[in-house]
């Protein structure tokens, strides 16, 4: 069903506004963006515009949606969205963690999203480094007194707080389901290299475990 640019933008914005932490909402939105990929520039600009306008909570949902969008793009072979996100990575993070009151709440999640993008090879190490540097700078800024939530000023409503908690819980659950996935490439090599880097050296705890295991083995002969 071909749409003109105007209609497509409106529909897409609706999808963006309905984003929550569930993977279904993100997938629906990503599939729309990919179905109308010849309007990719238009649709992408909607994302940046929404990031300027919506609440801090909604911005986090959009950031996580971008991860789904990039994954699906790579899978279907249409890389333009990935290029655009990579190019604008710092700008996107700037909007997700703006120099504004309450932005500190988004820092940890933004960092995790950035880690995911690197781990899934959606962005390169270089992109990651510069984005991470920018994020750390911003974190320092919004941690200061003047950016903390003040009682007199308008802040998150009770509803928003509860919804955010639910969405964080959902994201955490999703992350646990995916954190073990071996990224694309030679799995054995990736796993070995990772193990070589991260495995702690032989220590007393290991000796305890080995002795315990020997004891269990010894029971077999009883």
């Amino acid at each position, binding site marked *: 069903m071909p749409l003109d640019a105007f209609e497509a933008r409106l529909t897409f914005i609706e999808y963006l506004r309905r984003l929550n932490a569930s993977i279904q909402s993100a997938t629906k939105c990503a599939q729309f963006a990919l179905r109308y990929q010849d309007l990719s520039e238009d649709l992408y600009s909607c994302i940046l515009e929404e990031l300027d306008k919506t609440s801090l909570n909604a911005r986090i949902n959009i950031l996580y949606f971008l991860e789904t969008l990039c994954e699906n793009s790579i899978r279907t072979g249409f890389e333009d969205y990935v290029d655009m996100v990579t190019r604008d990575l710092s700008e996107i993070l700037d909007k997700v963690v703006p120099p504004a009151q309450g932005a500190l709440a988004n820092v940890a999640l933004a960092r995790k999203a950035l880690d995911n993008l690197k781990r899934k090879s959606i962005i390169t190490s270089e992109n990651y480094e510069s984005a991470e540097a920018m994020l750390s700078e911003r974190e320092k800024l919004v941690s200061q007194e003047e950016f903390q939530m003040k009682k007199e000023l308008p802040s998150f409503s009770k509803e928003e707080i509860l919804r955010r908690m639910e969405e964080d819980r959902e994201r955490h659950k999703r992350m646990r389901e995916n954190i073990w996935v071996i990224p694309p490439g030679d799995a054995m090599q990736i796993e070995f290299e990772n193990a070589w880097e991260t495995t702690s050296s032989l220590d007393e705890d290991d000796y305890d475990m080995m002795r315990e295991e*020997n004891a269990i083995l010894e029971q077999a002969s009883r």
Partner: protein
Amino acid sequence: MSANASTTPRSGSPASNPQGPLPAIIQLSRPYLTPNQISALEQQVAHINGSRDQQLKFQAFSVILATGSYLRFPIRTMGTAMIIFQRFYLFNSMQDFPSTSDTALACLFVASKTEDTLKKLKEILVASYYIKRPSGPDISMDSPVIEDQRRRLISLERHVLETISFDFRVKHPQPYIIKFAKRLRYPVSLAETAWQIALDSYRTILPLKSTPHAIALGCLYIAGSLIEVDISDAKPDQFCVQPREFENVVLEMLEFYIDWLPQTTLFARYTDPAKFMSMRIDLNKRLGKYTEQCVPGAHLQLRDYSMSDKGTVRYVLNWERERIERESY
């Protein structure tokens, strides 16, 4: 104790005990089996015939590894699946459970749960479908073929869980390979080769007979011999491994490579079994005539599937715990 499961007389009939019948049968988990127990079980199990049996097992391992790769599981998930698979066909016959590929997928599903790398059963089934038919008609999770297979596998899963006595403690050699290699200051290439050998160790019955750190040390030893790095300073007792156990691991891995090299991970790098044969000769020379330890262990029997129809079955991880709990009633 004369069998894998034992009957313990309990007081309290269903009528007098409002919580229902107390456990009538206790099954003790045995993470490790002695060589005698394993050969006794193999004799009890009615197999189709010797080498065909092994081929079916290798095919099942391929299913596990290919499906696991597709789903991007870490090696420990696939390894656990292979260990569970082998244990399954020690206590259950292939005549009762003829579809080894169904069993392989059920084991992979159980492993994905115990190793905390959860995937829905239907996702696993769809993945194995794509691997068998890469150009075939697309299939979705709602298809009746998948739904059918899922139902079969859910009931198979119950048999798998009962066979492993709901004991999800599986330890792997990989972390020890890294730790030992670093402690001994071995080059990365040695550790990487040992890592590949560890994958092949899952194709043998070793994980049911030996500890993961013993297997790790064995893998490092063979790797060292292959890439010609001096490994003479690796002393088993330094790493909580009995010298006998260490020798057994190495010899069994060498036997395995000599007999089945084309089916192994190392075949990509070493196509001539002669290398392994000369390693075996050298080792036997140093040890004299080698015989595997003859510890009998308790007599074990094949699984009785009707056990849970006769009464409540209680699965116990070790006797100490069971005794302590019973004393507190």
